[in-house]
């Protein structure tokens, strides 16, 4: 077991390095010195307080979407609709905040909004689980389609009833300061959403590994038939797992709207769903490891932005880095599996001879 864990950590690190090396080599095509670019990229992270804490600002929603993917993944379900669930969460967060901000005290509003966001995201997610349970509809397909539906729903609202009062752009009015998530570190953008994300990751770990409910989720994921034969209602768990998954992704909407952007804009964070998936894989679907993997992706994004300001590399370089890192992580999963197999065979040979 220990060797396995060591391999998986070692290979994940190697995979990240390999991904960065290969994408760095691409920089030679545009006559940039990769070493110099990476030096700027990583040193810029520590350039000032603001930039440094921005890593965690970026990581916050990613933790949520990665957890969203993970939670259903543990039940052997694929929720790739986190992007749409995030949009639903964002819409509800902004609509409820705008509606309540004048009427109730700020913290009170935040609490209500939080509950509403979780409920809305959960319901939006749970129908995917429901049609899977009831009609055996492929959840991969339905969750993917649900993102486009959510996106267009959001676009419609932004173009009509949620549109800013000056009526210029498909975006909402800014929120009152009273309903902002409070700042965590003064002089930076880091808000309490990050703490919520950390606690959520820990909570999800506890739920999965320390409660009967989480146990059943994992059992269904590892052997659905045996679980059902053991009296576990897999269909009910499908709906519940998707409810929680949807609520988690929607929570990212709350932290982004109330914590960071303080309004809703069309085309808001269009990649956090797929990045969340990548992070979940990098973290081997471990809620605690997700925190670190999210910080890495956050760092790549923040550093990449600064590097494109300072070193003049095109912004597509960030996607190149992320894509290659993900590919290498997948390859490293294969290597770990092979190493494990070889090790077992070696042991057997020794025992046999």
């Amino acid at each position: 077991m220990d060797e396995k864990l060591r391999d998986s950590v070692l290979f994940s690190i190697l995979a990240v390095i390999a991904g960065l090396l290969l994408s760095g080599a691409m920089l030679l095509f545009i006559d940039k010195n990769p070493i110099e670019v990476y030096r700027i990229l990583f040193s810029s992270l520590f350039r000032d307080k603001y930039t440094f804490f921005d890593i965690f600002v970026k990581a916050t929603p990613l933790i949520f979407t990665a957890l969203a993917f993970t939670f259903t993944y543990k039940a052997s379900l694929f929720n790739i609709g986190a992007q749409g669930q995030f949009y639903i969460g964002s819409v509800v967060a902004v609509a409820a905040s705008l509606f309540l901000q004048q009427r109730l005290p700020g913290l009170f509003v935040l609490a209500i909004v939080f509950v509403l966001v979780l409920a809305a995201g959960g319901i939006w997610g749970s129908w995917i689980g429901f049609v899977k349970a009831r009609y055996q509809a492929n959840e991969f397909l339905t969750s993917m389609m649900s993102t486009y539906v959510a996106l267009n729903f959001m676009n419609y609202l932004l173009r009509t009833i949620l549109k800013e009062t000056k009526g210029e752009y498909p975006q909402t009015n800014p929120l009152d300061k009273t309903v902002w998530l409070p700042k965590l570190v003064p002089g930076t953008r880091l808000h309490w959403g990050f703490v919520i994300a950390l606690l959520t990751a820990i909570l999800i770990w506890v739920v999965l590994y320390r409660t009967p409910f989480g146990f059943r989720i994992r059992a269904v994921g590892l052997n659905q038939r045996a679980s059902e034969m053991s009296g576990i209602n897999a269909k009910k768990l499908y709906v519940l797992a998707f409810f929680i998954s949807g609520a988690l992704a929607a929570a990212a909407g709350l932290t982004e709207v109330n914590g960071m952007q303080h309004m809703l804009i069309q085309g808001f964070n269009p990649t956090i769903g797929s990045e969340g998936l990548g992070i979940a894989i990098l973290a081997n679907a471990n809620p605690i490891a997700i925190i670190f993997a999210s910080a890495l992706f956050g760092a790549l994004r923040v550093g990449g932005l600064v590097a494109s300001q300072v070193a003049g590399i095109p912004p597509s370089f960030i996607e190149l880095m992320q894509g290659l890192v993900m590919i290498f992580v997948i390859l490293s999963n294969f290597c770990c599996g092979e190493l494990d197999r070889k090790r077992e065979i070696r042991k057997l040979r020794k025992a046999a001879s």
Partner: protein
Amino acid sequence: MTAFIELKNITKYFSHVVANQDVSFSIERGEVLALLGENGAGKSTVMKILYGLYRADAGEIFQNGKAAAIHSPRDAMNLGITMIQQHFSLVQAHSVTENIILGNVHGAIDREAADREVAALAAEHGFDIDPRARVGDLAVGVQQKVEILKAIYQKTRLLIMDEPTAVLTPQESDQLMKFVKNFTSQGNSVVFITHKLQEVMAVADRIIVMRNGMVSGNLRKADTDARELSRLMIGRELTNAAQVKTERAGGEVRLALDRVSVSDHGAVPSLADVSFEIHAGEVFGIAGVSGNGQQELCEVICGALTPVSGSIRLDGRAIETLNIHERVKRGIGYVPSNRHRDGLVMNMTMAENMLLKTSFDPRWLKNGFIDRKRLDAVSEKAIADYRIKASGPAAILRTLSGGNQQKVIVAREVDIGEKLIIFDQPTRGLDLGAIDNVHKIIRAERAKGKAILLVSTELTEILGLSDRYTVLYKGRLQGIYDRSALTVEEIGLLMAGYQLKEGGAHG
């Protein structure tokens, strides 16, 4: 004269087991070779290597004295070798013809011509098969004929059959044996993989016995007997499953099924009008060829299936509408025949598997979380009580041997089944020591006054353990008998669907 096929020093490792070690033997022209051994002895593996499905880690294969490079089944087929897998390799959704010509045609397919060709081939060998029938709709015995036709279609000279009679009635088995004799009389060879001694004695010319991945005997049938073979197979003398004399338990009726029917897909009922009672302190046996409704019977009692009609009572109370979870609470334990699929989560720990069926039970909770101390203690106790070879409660179940996995499930179900325990094929794939162990447990639980439903395809097991038994054929009971009421031949007829009194074919 050189052998048709010769295997030399074949060695194969799987990730958790040594499947074959230094396996060497030959296959002659025109002979029926039996490959005998317990489950997991490495019989199938070595044949899959010969057929090119697996690649050996060491060793060589010769055909007619020449080294043969077999890297894929295609190579094997080119050498005239075909293998029929234990669970068949047919595409359920495709027609008989499509299955037979798969891999054996090139370019465009003239469907009508292919159908005609297959029909002619079937007629030639006396098989009654519609080439256009969907394989998934055919009975298992017929599916095997499709597999055989496929081999003949390829003009094979060596036919390897993996446990071919496991799914057949004794009468169907006889037909198969006739085909084998006929086939080998034309100079072809057959390898028969089996763990059944009687079969070996009936059909084989020569016997290779395997144990723990190694060849433990290579004998002509004429020179050996069942006693020697079983010794080679299990490593020690076989003691007859002693019929322990126990007085008939006179307990009250514990489980009562009354005209229970289960419909699978609406058409043919998988259980029809099944009625019987099991008393407290009684073992009730279900004999029959597998696939005749045994699994449905177990599942309808444990709650995984709902009957379309009839009632099930436990201690007089109707339970047919309760779900699995509620029946677990009422004390019904169930050891399923396919433990990997239905009873265990292989990638979880031993302790987590102990929790699987009772995760709703508040006794495992402490402040809303799983009480791991308690769970570990219970698991430790199971490890001690059942002598489970595991490093501890945290051992991943996959790393345990098959027998120890079975012990885990038995330990759990015995604990759950305070009233009734269902054992479906509880000894399948276990070594003799483990079989003994399971039998002991069944007797002990009986003695405690539990009702026990024992499903087995091994007649010796049924006859050795049951107080009363029945035979299940196509979802119907073929009468209920006391332990010593019938001869083995009579039971065989019942298993094949004949009624004893009328003597005519049933259904």
